[in-house]
C-alpha cells in the first residue's frame, strides 16, 4: 500500500467516525512477510529494523538460532523466524543481507530474520480477532490475533510469548517444539519426537549431547529409558537435571560395554568367539571405527585368530584422536593379562607384546570416519559404544556405510546397550550385541 492509499484509508476512517464501531488507531504494528504470508508485530516491541549479514555462528545452539550479531556494540542473538516456525527459508549466501527486526522484550534485545519487512500499519485494537485454531503454519499459542487492513490479512505474532525467558517447566516443552522437531526432520529419528513426552528426559538428552556428545536415538533409546527411570528413583524428587559434565558421566555409568578401553576378559572373549558366524572365505576383513587406544582391537584380533585359525585376517582400526591412536601399534602389555591372550603374547624388550601374526593383521589408521571411508567388502564391523557418540545424522550415514560395505552374511558388533533397528536383525546373544543385515 502506498502512502497515498494509506492516507485515503485514514480519510475513509475519519469519514466513518460515526460507524457502528469507533475506529480509532490505538495499535501500530510492523508488518513483514514469511513464506509469502503477511505478519505483524506490536511496534512497542520493536526497537528498530536493520539489514545485516555475517552472523557469528554459535555452536550447540538450537537450529533456529542463526548466531549472534554485533549491533553497534551490543551483542544480540539472531533467530530465524522461518526456521522457528518450520517455514521454507531460502539459504542465502554467507554475506547476503537479511532483513532483521530488532525486538526488545523486557530487558532483552533479539534480532529476528524475516523474508521482507513491509511497513507500519495502524489499526484499532478492537478490530483484532482471535486466532483461528486451523490457522496452519504457526502454532496458535504464538499468535495474538488476526487483523484485516487495506484488503490484507495480517497475523499478529505474540513475540513476548515467543521470546519470553522460558520458565523451568517450559524449558523442555519449548525445546521439544522447534529444536527437537527440526532435529527430527534432519535425522528422521523417531526418538527425538518421542522426547516431547517427558520434559526432564528431553532436557537430559540435550545435556548429554552438549556435555559428552552422547546422542539418544533409536540406537540406545531402550537403555536411556531404563536408565532415566533408575535416575529418577535415585534422585527421589531432587532436581533431575545434569548440571555439569561429571553428572553426565554419572548418568552414563552402566552404558559402557564390558571391557571398554581395555583388553577384554576371558568370558567376554569367549562370548564374542561364540557370536561369530562360520566363515568359509580365505580372508576376513574387519572394520573397527573409533578404536581409541586400540586395546579392544588387539583383543578382537586374538579372538578372530582363535576362531578362524586358517584364515587371513585384516582389521582396519580408525580413530581421529591422534594422541590415542599413535600409541596403539606399539602397545606393550603386563604379564598378568587374561589367560585367553597367552598363546598370542611373547616377551619383548619392554614387556609382553603380541606376536607378528596378530600385529600384521591390524592396520591402525589416523582417520576420521565422518570423512569418506574406503574399505573392501567387510565380514565384521566392531563399533561398540561408538555410534552413540556421533550426531544422529552422522549415525545414519555410518550405518548406511556399514550396510553398503558388509558382505551378505557380515555382522556388526555393537555396544551392550545399543540396538540396531530398521533393516537390521539381531544375531547375537547375552553379552554380545550382534546384528546382520535384514
Amino acid at each position, binding site marked *: 500500500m502506498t502512502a497515498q492509499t494509506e492516507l485515503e484509508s485514514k480519510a475513509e476512517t475519519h469519514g466513518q467516525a460515526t460507524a457502528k464501531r469507533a475506529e480509532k488507531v490505538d495499535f501500530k504494528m510492523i508488518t513483514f512477510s514469511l513464506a509469502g504470508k503477511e505478519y505483524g508485530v506490536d511496534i512497542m516491541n520493536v526497537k528498530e529494523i536493520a539489514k545485516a549479514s555475517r552472523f557469528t555462528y554459535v555452536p550447540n545452539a538450537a537450529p533456529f538460532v542463526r548466531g549472534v550479531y554485533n549491533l553497534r556494540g551490543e551483542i544480540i542473538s539472531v533467530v530465524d523466524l522461518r526456521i522457528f516456525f518450520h517455514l521454507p527459508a531460502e539459504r542465502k549466501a554467507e554475506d547476503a543481507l537479511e532483513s532483521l527486526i530488532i525486538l526488545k522484550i523486557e530487558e532483552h534485545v533479539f534480532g529476528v530474520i524475516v523474508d521482507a519487512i513491509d511497513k507500519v500499519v495502524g489499526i484499532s485494537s478492537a478490530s483484532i480477532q482471535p486466532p483461528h485454531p486451523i490457522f496452519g503454519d504457526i502454532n496458535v499459542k504464538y499468535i495474538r490475533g488476526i487483523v484485516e487492513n487495506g484488503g490484507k490479512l495480517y497475523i499478529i505474532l505474540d513475540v513476548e510469548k515467543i521470546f519470553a525467558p522460558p520458565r523451568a517447566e517450559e524449558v523442555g516443552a519449548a525445546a521439544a517444539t522447534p529444536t527437537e522437531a527440526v532435529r527430527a526432520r534432519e535425522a528422521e529419528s523417531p526418538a527425538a519426537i518421542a522426547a516431547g513426552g517427558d520434559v526432564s528426559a528431553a532436557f537430559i538428552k540435550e545435556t548429554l549431547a552438549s556435555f559428552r556428545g552422547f546422542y539418544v536415538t533409536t540406537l540406545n533409546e531402550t537403555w536411556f529409558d531404563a536408565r532415566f527411570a533408575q535416575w529418577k528413583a535415585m534422585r527421589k524428587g531432587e532436581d533431575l537435571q545434569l548440571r555439569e559434565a561429571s553428572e553426565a558421566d554419572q548418568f552414563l555409568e552402566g552404558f559402557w560395554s564390558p571391557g571398554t578401553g581395555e583388553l577384554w576378559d576371558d568370558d567376554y572373549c569367549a562370548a564374542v568367539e561364540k557370536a561369530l558366524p562360520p566363515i568359509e572365505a580365505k580372508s576376513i576383513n574387519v572394520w573397527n571405527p573409533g578404536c581409541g587406544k586400540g586395546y579392544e582391537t588387539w583383543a578382537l584380533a586374538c579372538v578372530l585368530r582363535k576362531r578362524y585359525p586358517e584364515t587371513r585376517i585384516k582389521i582396519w582400526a580408525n580413530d*581421529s584422536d591422534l594422541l590415542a591412536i599413535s600409541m596403539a601399534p606399539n602397545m606393550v602389555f603386563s604379564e598378568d593379562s587374561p589367560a585367553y591372550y597367552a598363546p598370542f603374547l611373547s616377551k619383548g624388550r619392554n614387556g609382553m607384546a603380541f606376536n607378528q601374526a596378530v600385529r600384521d593383521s591390524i592396520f591402525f589408521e589416523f582417520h576420521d570416519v565422518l570423512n569418506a571411508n574406503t574399505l573392501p567388502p567387510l565380514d565384521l564391523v566392531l563399533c561398540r559404544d561408538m555410534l552413540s557418540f556421533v550426531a544422529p545424522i552422522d549415525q545414519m550415514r555410518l550405518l548406511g556405510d556399514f550396510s553398503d560395505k558388509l558382505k551378505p552374511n557380515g555382522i556388526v558388533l555393537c555396544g551392550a546397550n545399543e540396538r540396531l533397528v530398521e533393516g537390521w536383525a539381531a544375531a547375537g546373544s547375552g553379552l554380545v550385541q550382534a546384528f546382520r543385515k535384514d
Partner: protein
Amino acid sequence: MRVEYINPFVEAAFNVLREVLQSDVRRGELYLKSTSMPVMGVAAIVGLAGDVEGRVLFDMDKPTALKIASAMNNEQLNSFDDLVKATITELANMITAQAVTKLHDLGFRFDLTPPAIFTGENMEVSNADVEALIVPMETAHGKIEINVAVRERA
C-alpha cells in the same frame, strides 16, 4: 592413513627444512581434512605408489617460496623463475625421499614419482574419497603446509 606413516613424514619435513634453511622450524598441530582445500599459490606434488597409493603436496605462498629458494641458493632471488621452481621441486623431493627411506626401514615399500610444481592464483585441490593429513610447518620464511593423502592399496 596408517599411524606408522605419520611420523616419518613429520620427521623428514622437520629435519630437511631445518637443515636447508639453517634456522628454527616449528611444527603446528596435525589434522585431517577431506574436502577440497585452497592452495596458497605454489604447490609441489610428489606421487606415491607401492604398498599405498596417494600423493604428498607441499603448499606455500609465493613470497615464502621465493624466500626459501633464496635461502637454499644462498643468493637473493626476486622473481619467480626456473631456478626458484627447481629449488622448491628439489625441496619436495628431498623431504618425500627422506620420509620414504624412513618408511623403508620400518618395512613399508613406497615408490615416488618425479615431483611436479604448480603455481597460480586461486587454485584448489580435491581428492574426494581420500582424506589428507595436514602437517603445518612454520619456518622463519613463512608457512609450508604438507598435505599427505595416501591410502592402502586394497
